[in-house]
């Protein structure tokens, strides 16, 4: 992944929800580009549209209007199967509530997205899972079930799952929202480290302290980008 290469390009993105006879404009004319290797945070008040934006970035939702290019793919008009394939290969998700599958072991949870890919043999999967778990320091818990782990450990496993397939971008939705300050700090440090190693990260967060660990802060209000500014390096290191 070379820096400064545009990884994500959103042009005039609109998202409208139709419920009964009510139209809700969740996103209006969003223009946003994310370069490879960038670490950006998206913030804004509840209901401003940041999670909707993250869903669109992660191909979990479709746009009503506008163009979306992800790593060279025009993805706005893809069907569900094509979106699933690209999502699996290009995107790694980290959720606020971890979203690990309780009936799969740590190892199996991390392996899960790789089992959806044709280019990974079982040996490849084992290797990638091992590396990812070692990276988040959870290899020793490989055979445990999520219920046997603390919240922080579960989120580290979620991070391992997000990075195991070497995606183009990691999308993190309030990754520390369900954690105490100590575990939150550990997870944020992990993201910092991933970024230092070249990962592209896009994080939605309420927490100003977490937001400021990114390189760039995008602020959203009422479905519109109201600010998109770089963050001073000194703050990042705090």
């Amino acid at each position, binding site marked *: 992944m070379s820096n400064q290469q545009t990884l994500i390009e959103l042009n005039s993105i609109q998202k409208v929800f139709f419920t009964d006879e009510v139209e809700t404009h969740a996103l209006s004319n969003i223009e946003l580009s994310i370069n490879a290797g960038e670490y950006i945070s998206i913030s804004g008040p509840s209901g401003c549209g940041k*999670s*909707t934006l993250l*869903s669109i970035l*992660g191909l*979990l*939702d479709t746009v009503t209007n506008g163009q979306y290019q992800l790593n060279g793919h025009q993805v706005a008009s893809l069907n*569900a*199967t094509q979106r*699933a*394939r*690209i*999502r*699996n*290969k290009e*995107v790694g*998700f980290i*959720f606020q*509530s971890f*979203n*690990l*599958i*309780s*009936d*799969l072991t740590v190892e*199996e949870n991390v*392996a*899960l*997205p790789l*089992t*959806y890919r044709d280019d990974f*043999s*079982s040996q490849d*999967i084992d290797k990638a899972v091992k590396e990812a778990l070692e990276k988040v320091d959870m290899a020793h818990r490989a055979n445990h079930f999520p219920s046997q782990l603390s919240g922080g450990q579960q989120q580290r496993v979620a991070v391992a*799952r997000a990075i195991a397939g070497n995606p183009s971008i990691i999308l993190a*939705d309030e990754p520390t929202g369900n954690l105490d300050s100590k575990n939150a700090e550990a997870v944020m440090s992990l993201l910092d480290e991933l970024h230092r190693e070249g990962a592209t990260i896009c994080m939605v967060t309420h927490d100003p302290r977490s937001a400021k660990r990114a390189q760039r802060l995008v602020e959203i209000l009422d479905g519109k980008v109201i600010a998109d500014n770089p963050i001073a390096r000194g703050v990042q290191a705090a």
Partner: protein
Amino acid sequence: MNALFDLKYAYRMLIKNPGFTALTVSVMAAGLGLCVFMLAFIASVMTRPLPFDNGQDMYIVEAMEDGVQYNGGSLLLHDYEAIKAQSDSFTQIGAYYTATANLSNGDRAQRFAATVTTANIFSYTSTEPLLGRTFTANDAIEGSTPVAVIAYSTWQNYFGGDANIIGQSVKNNGVSTQIIGVMPQGYRFPNMADLWVPLQDDATRLNRSESISVSAFVMKKPTRSTAQVSEELKAIMAEISQKYPETNGKTSAYIATFQKAMMGDGANMIVGLMLTAVSFVLILACVNVGNLLLARANERAKETAIRVALGAPQSRLIMQMMWESIIICVLGGLFGLLLAAWALELLSYVLPNMLPIALPFWWIMKLDSELILQSIAIIGATAFVTGIVPAWKMTRGDFNAILRDGTRGAQGKRAGRINRLLVIVEVALSCILLSLSGVLVVLLQETNNSSYGVDKNNKLTARIGLSEANYPEPHQQEQYYQRLMDKLRSTPGIKGAGAMTSLPGNGAWYQPFLPEGYEVVDNQYPNTGRVTVFEGTMDTIGMELLEGRNFDSRDQLDSLPVAIISDQLARKYWPNESPIGKRFRYTNDESNPWLTIVGVVKHVIHGQPYSNMKHRTAAYVPFTQSHRRFMSIVIDVNGDADDFREALSDAVASLDPEVPAYNVAPLDLRFKRNTGGMTFIRDLFAVFALCALLLASSGIYGVLANSTSKRTQEIGIRRAIGATDEEVMSMLMKQGWKQLAIGLIIGLPLGFLASQGMVQLVGPEHNYYYGVFVAIPLIIAIVVSIATYMPAKKAIALEPSSALRYE
């Protein structure tokens, strides 16, 4: 690898929920087990080709009188010869009839079922003898040495497996007969033959009136359809009917598989109903398991959302759920197969005692490779049916909301619709099955209680056959039976004894006849049964004399030929007048005399007490004027009829050791066995209905409990804003009843229509079965009400505050 990953997960999920797994596997085992059992039963009795080369082209040709299909030697030998000469539909054709063989080797006499047949029966079935040889053309020439080929079981049981049996002689009905061959084990063609003797009757040397009755075994040309053959047979028989109206008035012929001919003309309808019933049970099982899997799919919506977020292709999501249904159905199928195999084995033991006939050799209740393959296909289909809706549901949903909130979400309109639809389907299907079963119970109750026109209590019956060799003359036959009657009547405990050619419940010998003065249109002579009766029999068996007199000493061979007729026959041909003194004659033989009616008895059912047979008329002639070698004897006893078996056998044996009494059975047991087939079908339907009721009630409860549980918050809100418990309960109950009403509106008419085939077959005197269509909705209404009330009560028991917080 990926499939293994999903399979492993599905397995883990099922292990984690043993209650769910046990329930779903049990439901599928019941549904699939019943289905496989039913298919195996139908294959055994109806559809599996006979186990010979070209078994699929082996058919039987029998006579059809006035639209009623007969079976078991109903075609005149002359008609068989005409069909053989004129038909172009068969590659092979032969004739046979079933007779009784009293084998005697000096020590003991035993009765066997003999098949008197043309020589080609063994080449027709492409079977070589185990020992010796089969028939040659010379064996069929009248006057040649009497020979017999015996079945393996006869060889083993009667001849002790004597290795030197070939060439030995044994008395068959008093005639020294040489054993020339032993057939392989299990060979009993065409039905349950114990031995085979060559057919020596020759149509060219017999008059039509002397013609014997045979069945024709044919090998249909593969290029001819049965419909084409039927047309050809009808044309041949119509020509004969025109030419010989006295013997063939309304006679035609039909072609059928041996299996179908044996089952009778109602078989297709019964098999159709059985398949429908078992399909409904299977559908109910699939609906229940599908519904449980659907509930699980809803519960696992978050897991699905995570998989979607991780880029799971839709096909993998579908397969994830399908694996569970596959495991459930495969396990259910395996248990079901075991259950079916066990039930089939049990049936093999039970069935021979339930039915009035010896079971044919092809009734082998087993699971063969074809059935196993069919079962695998059905298991695959059920896995697909049960899994596809939950799997489809699994791929639909607001995954973003689920991932954000972590909640399952409230029950959507669509899910609610599916739930309501499931309840309606379950009510309708169970209503149809319960109605069918209920109607059968009522019909059979009425049939079993129907009067055969005689007193069935304390009567013991048996069959006697005098050999032609030892009793060739009528006076010898008369002497034998007179001595037997005297002997029996003087036995302590026996109040009366009699003999007749056909006991009530057994088919009479139906022949064309002509009432004096009756105008025959288009040479279509009517038919009536002919039963020869020994003096005193009508009193013994309790036949009610309505008019005239019984047979007595006045009726001798050289006196006026007389007959007693049933009141149904009297009403039909001599309405509004007394038939006493009127005359009629059987037209099959020109030498048959005019018979003068001297008495009228109350109608007696000769045959099964169903619509086709129970109203068939009969006339009775005295033994002294119509001698017979084969008679059924009946004794009226003090006490239990079974206690007199030995006395009866001893009395028979004391007169002539070479004449055994066989088929010894109380009359009431004969009547019970007469409806044994229908009783078996009733019991089978009762099992279907019970399964349907259990499946439907548990399914309805599951669906309503699930949908009510999803409405717990709504119930909390309603109560929070002031709704009373009664109002909430009333609301929930009304919704359950609404689905009940729709299900009944669909199910009741369908159940009524489905039952009409059975009603027509049995032909009840009364319409008591209408009550079923009142009782069944009541039962289902109670079940649905309980299934609605229980979860509603549970939801109301929750405090409103808890209900509002309920997830």
